[in-house]
């Protein structure tokens, strides 16, 4: 399944696109309730991770089965471990973002922070899946 000839670009567009929009929405919500600064950015970039994970499994499995490959999408780690890694990365990103004073926290900052966390997770998870083959 992991080497199935599906269109990875489409899968990544779906996963990263959903992460981007979800991060933006969380950014707007958290900003509206007054949670700005480190904790706002941290939550906006971390909370979309389970949703993106779900989208990745769904789109990757769907695209692979359309290409004629069976089986489930390979997981680098269990969900709690994935969330813990995501939390550590989100904390780092939130710290870096909180050093910048250009943007007020809202949709844009939430979206960008979430996207950067997602791409960091992709780098770690693909390397982990590849090392276990």
């Amino acid at each position: 399944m992991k080497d199935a000839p599906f269109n990875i670009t489409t899968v990544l567009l779906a996963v990263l696109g959903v992460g981007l929009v979800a991060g933006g929405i969380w950014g707007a919500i958290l900003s509206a309730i007054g949670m700005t600064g480190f904790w706002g950015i941290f939550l906006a970039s971390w909370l979309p991770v389970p949703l993106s994970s779900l989208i990745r499994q769904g789109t990757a499995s769907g695209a692979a089965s359309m290409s004629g490959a069976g089986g489930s999408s390979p997981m680098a780690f269990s969900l709690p471990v994935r969330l813990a890694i995501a939390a550590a990365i989100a904390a780092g990103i939130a710290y870096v973002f909180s050093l910048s004073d250009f943007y007020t926290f809202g949709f844009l900052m939430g979206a960008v922070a979430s996207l950067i966390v997602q791409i960091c997770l992709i780098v770690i998870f693909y390397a982990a899946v590849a090392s276990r083959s």
Partner: protein
Amino acid sequence: MKRFEPFLQLIALLGGAVTFGTAYYLLFLGHPAWSEAPFEAFLPMFQGLILNIGMSQIIVSNIALEACVILFFLSKDWFWLIAVALLLVSLPVTMYLLMPINFQFIETTDPDLAAKAADLLKSWGLYQIIRTIADGLAFAAMCKPVIWPKHSA
């Protein structure tokens, strides 16, 4: 036009992330699987993946490229131009180094292709490393002006 800058930044970052993610996937998951598989099994895997990815990858990276060019003119931040230069590194690497190998595996007109496959794949992997590093650095270059814009430094 300046008010579209955040929207363009999101498009550039999404395009850059997808371009890098695809290159990284091919290097870390695609290439090792192809290298381990016997020639008869590898060929349909390779053809399927490359033919599937090709056009969408060109569209996504071009959108990112154009967004970065516009953002450079809007913000005058050199990091957008660095991102453009790094994304453009992929162009000659893909056209002159990767695509000739891709076409050999897709057209399969060479009768000695099976014997040459291992060497061709090794070269393909080396060229893909260059492309992945360039795309990764391009994404990092895009992040810099978003997190720390020029005029806030």
